[in-house]
């Protein structure tokens, strides 16, 4: 069972970060943070003392909504890597289309550039896979 304590946080809120910050100070009596049309509330376990909200003030005042949690930063990094991979794949496909369209007239330098590009793409893909494996 839980109860909810409404809070005022004018600087905006990163719900996941605020949850982590509150739990670091107050402990696991804080179950999370919710936002509804009625406002923002901290969800606390029913066993929490009545004056638990007094411990929120300093945490709320110091909260920076732009500060990501480790999980959010990892997610943002993964999103960026995915976007980068898509850009590389699109650029390479365009390069291949152009090369195949004029294959018989390619110079040695152009063929070498094409080969180099293939190696770069393979290298990029391997690094992407390596990052995903997180070994």
């Amino acid at each position, binding site marked *: *069972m*839980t109860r*909810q304590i409404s809070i005022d946080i004018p600087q905006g809120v990163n*719900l*996941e970060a605020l*949850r982590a910050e509150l739990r670091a100070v107050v402990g696991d009596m804080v*179950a*999370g*943070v*919710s*936002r*509804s*049309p*009625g406002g923002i509330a901290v*969800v606390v*376990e029913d066993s929490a003392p009545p004056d638990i909200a007094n411990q929120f003030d300093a945490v709320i005042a110091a909260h920076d909504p732009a500060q990501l949690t480790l*999980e959010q930063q990892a*997610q943002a990094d*993964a*999103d960026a890597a*995915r976007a980068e991979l*898509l850009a590389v794949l699109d650029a390479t496909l365009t390069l291949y289309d152009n090369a195949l369209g004029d294959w018989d007239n390619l110079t040695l330098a152009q063929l070498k550039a094409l080969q180099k590009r293939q190696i770069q793409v393979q290298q990029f893909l391997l690094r992407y896979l390596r990052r995903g494996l997180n070994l």
Partner: protein
Amino acid sequence: MAYTAPTTRSTDDLITSTIWNTDLVDNIAALKDPPSANYELNEGSDYTTTSTSFADVDATNLALAVTTTGGDVMVHFHGTFQGNTLGMRIFLNLDVDGSPHAADDGIIFWRETTGAGGTTINAPISFTRLITGLSAAAHTVKLQWKVSAGTATLYAGAGTSSADNHAQMWVREVS
């Protein structure tokens, strides 16, 4: 008009207008219009939570009160949710008169399995639940939710692009 359990009659019993009206007219009227309550979300903003313990989604609007005559109560909810973290679960439960209807992880969950090219995914969640054993009295049923990690969003008809959906919850005495 409340339902009244009809009395068993015997041959030669006099059926007065009072008896007729109580046993038939009023009871049919009661069955036609059983105790019920419903709410459709059409809010100014969506709902979100990071709570890992069950918490009310909306202690005002998604807290439906009915005064029953002792029968079973059917509860239905449908809504569209978003999870933002791969593998996270969104759990739903009901709170009946201040107590969780189901123990442990509640009555239903959905697991976020990120779609191609994205890190968030939307899913409809719907359930219909029969609540038995309630006394003839006023009862309040609330929708509750929790997550295993990350942030859950319930769209609330708040104008969110491509997700301006109006979830609904209702309760009705059905027996």
